[in-house]
Every structure is written in structure tokens, then in C-alpha cells.
């Protein structure tokens, strides 16, 4: 991603916007005890790739001569590619993706995009986030609408979390719910020798007569807050994992997500981003580093979730706002494109290539054409995974993509 783009983003403060919309979890009101039942609800982890990931080099059609001809310096050769099948293979740096595929945990949905592709970073990303084009009113994102639609009085505790310093993605903005933007687990921890403090306050809570109204509400909230902090501290303290996460930024963020999931927090959506994919020139080294970061992190995270017994209820989706041109440019890079593959990773995906690879001969303005609307992907996730009706959220019915096992 160019420095120009950095400048063009409006500079917002990096401090958090905190959730101010949640009440105590239902189980606490019922049970009244500090024993938290592990939740069975499904979790979606979004990994956004900002800048426009070069799909053609991520899942490379190494056999096609059109591909090699168009990319004399950048094309992934048959020898280097990590084979998916006879005709397609991963970029050699994407070892983690290859591992996930081998262990039956990666669905590659090809040709994802939308009609009348927009090649501006902001515009296209906003479209992915809100499912609306510029002409419509865009106040909330698709995940924000999901959060709004699923509130039923006893809402979830912090329904979604954005992990990172960057501006919160529009996808998460909603009418009523503020999603916290968090940079570390510290936000969910009591600092400085919390043990005795927790004990005292919990004891006070036990012996207090439950108040009505506001007092009662604060009492139950306090109970669940202390319990959550205890779980997170215990989880991160002894968070042992046989998996070695790479040192990269994305891997560390996903490790934090893993710890939060394991701590029993009832959050259903986690959102992280990886920036830097806008490789207009000298793409080779930069893209290699990025794919290495992405695939290493995803691989470690999915395996880690499986190891801790959450593999069946955590789904990870990775996408980018557009792909890149087939033809490489004069600076050994590629320019903004249109359709590209998106990825779903987890125990319950239908592993492998889904949908055909877009044709390299039937191009639109030099870009491969999409055949799967991104909203179909959203519909799949909303209907089949998160268990809500996707139509009101997406503003229409969209055919699902066969990427998840029922």
C-alpha cells in the first residue's frame, strides 16, 4: 500500500470507541453463580486484507500460458507453486494455506467480487463493508446490522471486538451498539494483583441482597465482569499452546483472539486487518512477506483453535476489497483489479477450490470477471454459520455458496 493512501485516509485518533451497549449475560441472572457455562455459539473471525490482495498470485493458475505471458517477472512457476491440483497452486510463501488445505480446513471461493467493480480502495472497501454503493445512505455495516438484529433484550456481553490500532472497520458500525477497538488483552484484565480485590468484591456481591433496578443491574454486571477477567487472566496466564505462533503482527493479534475465545467470552465476531497489499511496484518481495504473514498466522490460529477444542465453532473468513490486474505493469508490480478469491478456514468448511477459476481470456477492462457476488459469501456465513436470516441484513436474498459443511 502506498504512502499516498496513508495520507488520504482521514486521520482519526487511535484511541478506542468503547462498547456502551450490553447487559449481563442471561446465564448469570439465572444461575446466580460465578460458574460460567462454556458457550456453544459459533464465532466468526474476519481477517481483512487491505490494499487489494493479488489473488492471481495467491492461487496461481500456473499452467495457463496467458498467466505466464502476462506476468513475465511475477508469475508463480509450476515448480514453485504449492500444488492444490494439476492446474492451480499457492504462492510458495503461502505454506500455511497449503497446510490448512491439506488438513481439510480451507475453502477457496474463487471469483468473488461484484458487478461494476470499483477500483478505489475506499469506495470498494466501503462496498464490502456496507453492501451499499456510494449513492445509498451508508450508516452501518453488515456486521453492525447483524449485531442490531440479534439483540433481544438480554444482549450478549460485548458482541463483537475489533483488535487493532487502525480505525474501526465500517463493517462493524451499527445503530445502537458500540464495538470496542482493543489493542491488547489488558482491556479485559484487572491490573495489579487482582486476586484479593476480586475475592473481596465477589464476597460482597454474594452477601448483598440483590437490588432492583439500577443497583441490581450493576451487581450482575460486576459479577460477570469479574468472572470474565478471571477467566481471561487464567487463560492467558496458563495459555499453553503447542502451536508456535509466528512473530508477525497478524499472528500475535490472532493469538490474542484465540485467548479471548478460550476464556469463555461470549463475543461472536472478531475483526482484524492486515495492511500493505497495494503492491504497485516491486511486488515480489513485499507480497511474499505478506502472504507469509497471512498464511503463517491463519495456519497457527486454526490449528490452535482445534487444539483447544473450539475448532468446530470458529470460522475464519479472509477477503480483500479487490484483486489485481492480470497484466503486470512496468514497475514489476500490479495495479488495482476486480475479482479475487476469498478464503474460509475452520473445521467445518468444505475444503478445496469452490467455483471455477475466472477465465484469463474473458476479461473486463483487463481484469478477471467475478461470478460469485461477495454478498453470497456473507449470506452463507449469516444463514448457515451465525444462524440469522441474511436477507434483511444484506438487503436482499443471495444464493449461498457451498463452502460450509452442514
Amino acid at each position, binding site marked *: 500500500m502506498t504512502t499516498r493512501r496513508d495520507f*488520504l485516509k*482521514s486521520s482519526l485518533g487511535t484511541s478506542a470507541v468503547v462498547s456502551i451497549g450490553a447487559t449481563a449475560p442471561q446465564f448469570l441472572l439465572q444461575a446466580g453463580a460465578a460458574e460460567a457455562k462454556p458457550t456453544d455459539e459459533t464465532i466468526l473471525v474476519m481477517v481483512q486484507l487491505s490494499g487489494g490482495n493479488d489473488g492471481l498470485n495467491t492461487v496461481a493458475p500456473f499452467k495457463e500460458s496467458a498467466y505466464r505471458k502476462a506476468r513475465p517477472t511475477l508469475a508463480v512457476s509450476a515448480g514453485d507453486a504449492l500444488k492444490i491440483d494439476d492446474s492451480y497452486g499457492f504462492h510458495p510463501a503461502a505454506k500455511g494455506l497449503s497446510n490448512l488445505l491439506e488438513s481439510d480446513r480451507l475453502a477457496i471461493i474463487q471469483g468473488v467480487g461484484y458487478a461494476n467493480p470499483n477500483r478505489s480502495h475506499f469506495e470498494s472497501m466501503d462496498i464490502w463493508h456496507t453492501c451499499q454503493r456510494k449513492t445509498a445512505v451508508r450508516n452501518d455495516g453488515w456486521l453492525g446490522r447483524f449485531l442490531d438484529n440479534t439483540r433481544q433484550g438480554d444482549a450478549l456481553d460485548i458482541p463483537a471486538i475489533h483488535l487493532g490500532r487502525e480505525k474501526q472497520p465500517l463493517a462493524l458500525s451499527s445503530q445502537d451498539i458500540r464495538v470496542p477497538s482493543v489493542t491488547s488483552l489488558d482491556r479485559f484484565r484487572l491490573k495489579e494483583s487482582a486476586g484479593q480485590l476480586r475475592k473481596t468484591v465477589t464476597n460482597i456481591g454474594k452477601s448483598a441482597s440483590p437490588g432492583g433496578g439500577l443497583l441490581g443491574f450493576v451487581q450482575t454486571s460486576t459479577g460477570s465482569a469479574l468472572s470474565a477477567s478471571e477467566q481471561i487472566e487464567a487463560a492467558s496466564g496458563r495459555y499453553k499452546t503447542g502451536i508456535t505462533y509466528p512473530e508477525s503482527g497478524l499472528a500475535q493479534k490472532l493469538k490474542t483472539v484465540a485467548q479471548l475465545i478460550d476464556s469463555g467470552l461470549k463475543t461472536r465476531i472478531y475483526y482484524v486487518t492486515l495492511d500493505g497489499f497495494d503492491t504497485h511496484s516491486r511486488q515480489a518481495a*513485499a507480497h*511474499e512477506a505478506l502472504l507469509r504473514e497471512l498464511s503463517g498466522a491463519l495456519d497457527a490460529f486454526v490449528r490452535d483453535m482445534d487444539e483447544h477444542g473450539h475448532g468446530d465453532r470458529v470460522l475464519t473468513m479472509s477477503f480483500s476489497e479487490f484483486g489485481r490486474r492480470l497484466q503486470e505493469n512496468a514497475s514489476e508490480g500490479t495495479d488495482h483489479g476486480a475479482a479475487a478469491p476469498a478464503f474460509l478456514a475452520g473445521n467445518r468448511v468444505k475444503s478445496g477450490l469452490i467455483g471455477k477459476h475466472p477465465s484469463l481470456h474473458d476479461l473486463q477492462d483487463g481484469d478477471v470477471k467475478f461470478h460469485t457476488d461477495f454478498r453470497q459469501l456473507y449470506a452463507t456465513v449469516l444463514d448457515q454459520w451465525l444462524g440469522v436470516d441474511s436477507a434483511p441484513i444484506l438487503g436482499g436474498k443471495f444464493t449461498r455458496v457451498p463452502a460450509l459443511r452442514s
Partner: protein
Amino acid sequence: MENTMNRHLMTTAFLCGLIASALAQTNAYAQPDLDADKRTAVELLPASCLAVVEMQHPDQLLTTLTEHRVWTEIQQRPEYTAAISNPGYMMFLGIRTHIETQIGMKWREAYDTLLGGGITVAFHPETEGLVALVRSTDAAKLKSTAKTLIELGRADARSKGNEPLPEDEYRDITIYGKNDARFAIAGPWLVMTNKDELGKKVLDTLLDGSRTSIKDNEKFAAARKSVSGEPAIWSWVDLGTVRDAGLANGLDKNQTENPIVELLVGGVLTNLRQTPYVTASLYVSGESTRLQFAAPHENEWVEEFREYWFGPDSQGAADAPLETESTILSISTYRKVSEMWLRAGDLFDERMNDELAKADANLTTFFAGKDFGEDVLGSFGPAMQVLVNRQSFDDVLPKPALKLPSFALAGHLENAAESQTELRRTFQSMVGFLNVIGAMQGNPQLDQDIDIYRDNKIYTASFIPEPDEKDSERARIQFNFSPSLAFANDRFFIASTKQMAKELVDAAQNEQSTRGELSNTAIKLNAKALGEALADNRDQLVAQNMIKKGQTREESANEIGLLLEVLGLFEGVSFDVKTTGGELKLELTIQTKN
């Protein structure tokens, strides 16, 4: 027959004489007149010591410090008076007076007498012990003072119910203390150590003499020879042996973690991996305090990927800084930056290299496809400077509310004609780009212009004030800047203000060709200019202090005032790296006003 007898007699007499004199000699060693011992500490320390720290004239050092201007200024301050009136200090004074009476000397006299001959501390690897040798100027006074103090100490211990100071005997010398802290007095010497064995070894040398001491250690001797002037404290470390023993693992990886550190001190790392020893000297005088690190240096030690730092034959020299009266900070160095960028693979670990690869891709795009490492950085010569000057806004309107200093990068262009055009184009498109962003954010626009100054072109960009802002004395922060690019001969200057660009062109044209000793890197901070720049923004400093410390305006004003006063006591700080004369020298100098 008679001749043979005579010969036997003479041989016997000769032999007897020899034996007698030999006996006499050993007698001399067995009962030396210790009190009149004339040896120096280094003659008494074992040859295998790895590190030695020496303070030859503690009395002179103390005099310099107590007469120092900074100290006298501190003593005049009310804060000092308040600090010494606290009960703790009073109690300390009381104890000190009591001891003075007991030993019959004022503390200063005691200090001068007892330590006047010098203090030397050494580390001995075989015993892993430290030993300190303190030489007094008067052996008798040392003995009596020690006796008094030991008695005082023992009385105090008894009164508190503690164990009194134990003592031991070794070769007629009393050793006090136990385990980790022992000391003994022998003649004019006070020997202190934490390892019994080591202490005894030194005493042996004291009593018997020794063939070899640290004085004969090759590396030590070489280091001593190269001492210049009279340092107040001098120290030496046998780095070669330390490395061989595997104790300097930090030097194993010949990589620094980040590019800034690498740029500044990468070469030092190269040197430390090969150099036999390192010395550190502290010079103290009324006007300046200088800390100097030195180590032998040979050009053969320089790896290929560090050549950018040292220059050819380790003689890379920085330019003289283009300083003016208003210069707050100048950093002048010799670095072939493009080489460093291209050698990143050797210099940094994989993670940093990944980051640099990403940055390279971005920067190459930014510079319109020119390879950042080779073309962009490659067009710069190795001698570069960064300067930070105080801006005076005396006859400038609008005046910004927050007065920031101006800064500039000065360097040389390899192919002046070609690179000039490139640089200019990049500069102008950068300004245009800033304007687009600025317009979106409601910031003032930059107006580009070309000035001719002393036959040189200066490309400038100044912010345009709004009509009602033109005469403001509280203008926006942008009015601290008017980015400019200037060329003079093969030099280029990228400055944050037009004024600074002009000043640099002046300085370059008036540059003296003669300079003092050439440095590889020279960093200088001028306290006066810094003080003035801070005083320009006194209101903001006070406000920040009020907010950050929650104090009242008065308290904050006092604090800031104090800060500026203290700053006013100093001339400045400089840091130099020199690679000439077969040595790598790092010098940090703090100069005070006299």
C-alpha cells in the same frame, strides 16, 4: 700448592659473599619498609586481571567538583537549602563531626590524606574477585585513622548487640571483615576485596614483590601508552580475553535490531568483535567533562557490509557542520546509506528485512518507480548532515502560536546535474501532493516559488494564510514551515523553512577549508539555542506542566523557570566518533559555562 689453596679460599670467600648478599637481599624482602613503599597499584595487581579502573588523583577530582560552577550554583538555590535542612542530613552531619573529632582530621583532610595516592580497582578472573587498592599519602595516619574507625565501628556494633568486626592474621598483617568484604592495611595501602584468595595474593605481592604484574600485561601496557592527558578516572577492559571466554555473547550476532541503531553505532559493533581491549577515560575540569571510549581499530576487521559505515580504509569523514548561532542540534556523519539499504540482508534479521522489503515497495512506488535503495539513496554522497535551528519569528507574520524549530537535511549529490532535476521533481510533486491532502483536511495550501539567492536557486513552498490570519500572532502550527530545496555546487539542502535553506547556502559558501581532527560522526547540542527555543514556548510548557502534573500556574511557572536556569549553566553536549589513528574513539563531552 699455595696457589691452589689461595684459589680455594678466594672461591669460598666469593661464594660466602654471594650467599651473604643473597641473604641480605631476602631479608630486605622479608621485612620491607612497607611504610615507604614507592610502588604503584598496577605493580601490585596480578597480570591476569581482566579489568582495571584507576583514579590517580581523587583529591584533585574532588577539588574540581566542589569548585565547579554548577555545584556553586546549586548550593545557592533555595531547593538545596531546603534539601539539606531535613533531619536525615542533619543526623549525618552530626555523625560526621563526631568522627572528625575522633580521628583528629576534618573530613576533607582525611579524604586527601587517605585517598590522595590514588584508588585502583581490578577484576581478577581466576578468583572471580574484585580488589581495590587505595593508597594514602601518609602511612602512619592511615594506620591510626583505621584503628580509630575500627574501634568506633566495634563499639557501635556492641551497643546494638551485633557481632563486632572479626579479624584474622596473615603474614603479620591483620585482615578485617569476613566472607564477601575484607580489608587490610599494609604500609600506605588499604586493600579491599571480596575474595579472600585474591586479597592474600595481593598482600603476597606487596610483601614479596613479584616478577610480573598487570603492568607487564601486553594489552594493558599498550593501552597505558596511548593515554592522552590526565584523565580523572581511567579504565581498561581486556575485551579479547572476555570474548574468548565466551562472556560477551551479545557480540556474537553481528546484527543490530533496527536501522536507526545500526546507522548510529553499527561500526562500533564491528570493532568490539575484534579489538583486543577497550579503555574508558573520564576527564573533568571546570569547563568540561569528557567521557572517552577508545579501542584499537584495524581496517581489516571491517566486514564488507559495514564498509558503508567506516568508509574506505576506515577513513570516512563527515563534513564540518554548517552551524550558525541559532543551531540547536547538528548531526554530521559519514554513511553510505544506499549501501546500508542494499546490505540489509546481512545487517538485520528476517523480520526487519520483511519490513524493509515492504517499505521498499512503497517507497519505490512513491519515487515513481526508481529503486529506492540503489537510485534514490544512491544519488546521495556519504557525507550527510541533519541540522535543527531555532527559528526567530521577529519580523515574520503570521507568527505561529507554537514556535517550532526548523530542521534540514544537507548532503552531496553524486551526479549533481542529473540528480538535481530528479530531486527537484520529487520535491515539487511532494508539495503538490501535500496540497491535495491539505485541501481535503481544510489546511492552508502551499504556494510554490523559486527564489534566486546568491546565484543559487531555492525552490520554496510557503503556506498561504487566510486574509484574517495574515497578521495573527497566534497562527496555526503550519506556519512554522515553508519547505524548501536548495542547491549549492554539488550540495543539496532540504529544509523545513526558506530561511534555513538560505542560511545553509550561506554557510556552505563561507565554509572554511581547514578543520580540526576529522570525525566519522559529530553530534552537537547547543544549550543556549535550546534554551532560547524553549523560552519561546514558555507558555505552552507551563500549560503542559499544569495539565500533566496537575499543578497551579505558579508552581508550573517555577518549575519551568528552574529548568531554563539549569539549562543556562551549560554550553552544550557533543558526541564524536573518530576512526583515525588506528583507534576507534567515542567521545561524549559536556561543556558548562564558565
